């Protein structure tokens, strides 16, 4: 696939499909993929196919894909080796009464890759494992409370969702929140609830929606570890989003974190549905005491995809390549911003960048910017961090920056510099 010509895209088929969907599907498209989260009326809603670093929507518009399925696509869409492994397993079957050998192989692979992992369990979604992990922490400690960071996303389950629909206050009663990077707030929480906190679940760095990403301040993770040790609290790292995109051994290695358990999902099977939680041996008994099951979780197909994906990530230059491409994108966008009179910041690790206009916390500028980039074949989410994949090329970054050079002035014309 390649990008289309220079005309602005339109989205009639997406809109028509959405009108049909709205009649028979609650919200038409629910959750993060709901159009209101992106740019309503001015971005694709339905995809048709994808290849490498590109996707095509149902209107035939082609895009450089900087969202990568919200992260899972790490090697590029439709990766031949991964899909080969998938097809091979599909030919043998995908839903058995039992797990296949692949599950053991995958657990062996992950426990060999991740330093603290003495064991691994598998599920499908990120939420499956984050929810299970906090229960393991409760089981292990015989305590109730869990601390999370405000604005962090750990899934759609009742304990962590921001949305109150159908959620009982009791389900949140034992969830405490601190602001990212605020050790003082954590100290306060541990002092207010002595002996009551089972676990703290945090992402390796803060990647909220609608705002710049925040790296941990110096010494953050060391202090967290110290507090956890002092208070007997389990440190659970939710590495679902960055997953193995930053480091084949897990993002905790990048940030020098010493977790007790880690949840991974997105970038481990190049788009195939699988998640995992890993932990140290001392939590194994508690892990065994927390019942965990799902009809589709033992499917060997995503496990085949995961094994191949992890092997490629381990043996190729995919990870440094994503980092380097992301760096070019970051520097390029920040320079272009300056050139056009804007202070823009591209935050987060370079393989998962996100741009904000420093002087517009209301997001009007990034919304227009992304709308116009999308209309020119570059899919950038206005409110959620972006993803570089290993199939992206220098030419994609060049084209993106060239387009941004045209789009910044459009933003200025519409909203003023």
């Amino acid at each position, binding site marked *: 696939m390649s990008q289309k010509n220079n005309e602005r895209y339109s989205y009639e088929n997406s809109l028509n499909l959405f009108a049909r969907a*709205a009649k028979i599907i609650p*919200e*038409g498209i629910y959750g993060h993929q*709901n159009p209101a989260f992106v740019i*309503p009326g001015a971005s694709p809603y339905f995809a048709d196919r994808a290849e490498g670093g590109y996707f095509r929507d149902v209107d035939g518009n082609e895009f450089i894909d900087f969202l990568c399925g919200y992260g899972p696509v790490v090697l590029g869409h439709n990766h031949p080796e991964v899909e080969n492994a998938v097809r091979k397993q599909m030919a043998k079957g995908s839903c058995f009464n039992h797990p296949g050998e692949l599950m053991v192989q995958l657990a062996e692979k992950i426990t060999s890759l991740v330093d603290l992992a003495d064991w691994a369990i598998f599920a499908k979604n990120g939420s499956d494992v984050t929810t299970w992990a906090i229960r393991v922490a409760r089981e292990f400690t015989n305590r109730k409370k869990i601390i999370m960071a405000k604005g962090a996303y750990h899934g759609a389950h009742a304990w962590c969702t921001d949305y*109150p629909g159908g959620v009982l206050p009791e389900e949140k009663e034992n969830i405490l929140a601190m602001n990212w990077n605020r050790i003082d707030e954590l100290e306060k929480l541990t002092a207010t609830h002595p002996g009551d906190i089972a676990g703290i679940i945090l992402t390796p760095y803060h990647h909220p929606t609608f705002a710049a990403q925040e790296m941990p301040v110096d010494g953050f993770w060391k202090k967290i570890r110290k507090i956890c040790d002092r208070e007997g609290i389990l440190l659970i790292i939710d590495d679902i989003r960055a997953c193995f995109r930053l480091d084949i051994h897990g993002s905790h290695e990048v940030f020098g974190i010493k977790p007790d358990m880690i949840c991974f999902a997105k970038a481990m099977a190049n788009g195939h549905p699988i998640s995992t939680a890993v932990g140290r041996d001392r939590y194994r008994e508690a892990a065994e005491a927390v019942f965990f099951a799902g009809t589709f979780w033992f499917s060997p197909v995503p496990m085949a995809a995961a094994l191949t994906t992890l092997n490629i990530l381990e043996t190729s230059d995919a990870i440094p390549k994503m980092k380097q491409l992301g760096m070019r994108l970051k520097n390029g966008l920040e320079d272009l911003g300056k050139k056009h009179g804007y202070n823009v910041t591209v935050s987060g690790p370079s393989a998962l960048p996100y741009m904000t206009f420093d002087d517009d916390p*209301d*997001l009007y500028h990034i919304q227009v910017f992304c709308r116009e980039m999308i209309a020119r074949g570059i899919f950038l989410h206005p409110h959620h961090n972006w993803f570089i994949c290993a199939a992206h090329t220098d030419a994609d970054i060049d084209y993106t920056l060239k387009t941004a050079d045209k789009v910044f002035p459009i933003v200025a014309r519409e909203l003023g510099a």
Partner: protein
Amino acid sequence: MNEMLKASIYLKGILPLMEDLVAFDQTAAQAIKGKRLILQFEIKNGPSAHIIIRDGTICHGTGKHPLPSVRLTFKTPDLFNRMFEGEDVRPGLRKGIPHLYFLIKKFPILADRLTYYLEGAGKNATDPAVIDFQVKIGLHAMLCGMAAVATDDPDLRNIADSTPFGTLLINVLPDGPFGTFSKIRQNGNFIFSVSFNQPVKHANAVMEFASADVAKQLIDGKLNAVTTIGLGKDIKIGGLLPLIDKASIFLYQFDKVINN
């Protein structure tokens, strides 16, 4: 259903519509003609609000008035809610015996007229002036109702806390009505406030209805806001979406409470 929350919504979300009502509806205007009084509603250990009736107008305020002419006190929110919904409930009359005639004979007229437009026969009116009025009170109710829920719903306290500071402008194109729902800092804490058809300096987020007809459909529950936004034409949103997101949670709750 939390009766206290419902009472708060009636007092802060629906009672303000009396202002618009007497400005539009002849029968309602007639009912307060020549009257001059300050009517206060109080719920024991709960919210209060008052309306100032003067020179053919009504002005609504939340909280207690320092010098009300009439104080209607309700032992429980449930009693107040039943009265508001038209049941024959006798509140405690702490003050204002001379106004008894107005209270018994005239005030119910205002309530009846409001009901007529909100959910009675008037809901299906085709007269454009009536439709405009309904959009106006609908939007006014939405804004005040959101603020009431955001302030008083104990189950949504976390949502109120995590609502970003700022002003959401809701506008009906091409000529209004419009109004704002804001979370603002006050004395080291925050409050939610509402403005209606007042100039707006900067809106952190915007929601725009393409026409009064679209707004009316939404108010009447005939249009699904989420899917309409998705269709990208009739309702447009922009700016600080988390503010819109939280406001819609308050709006949903408001709707749920008054329709229960």
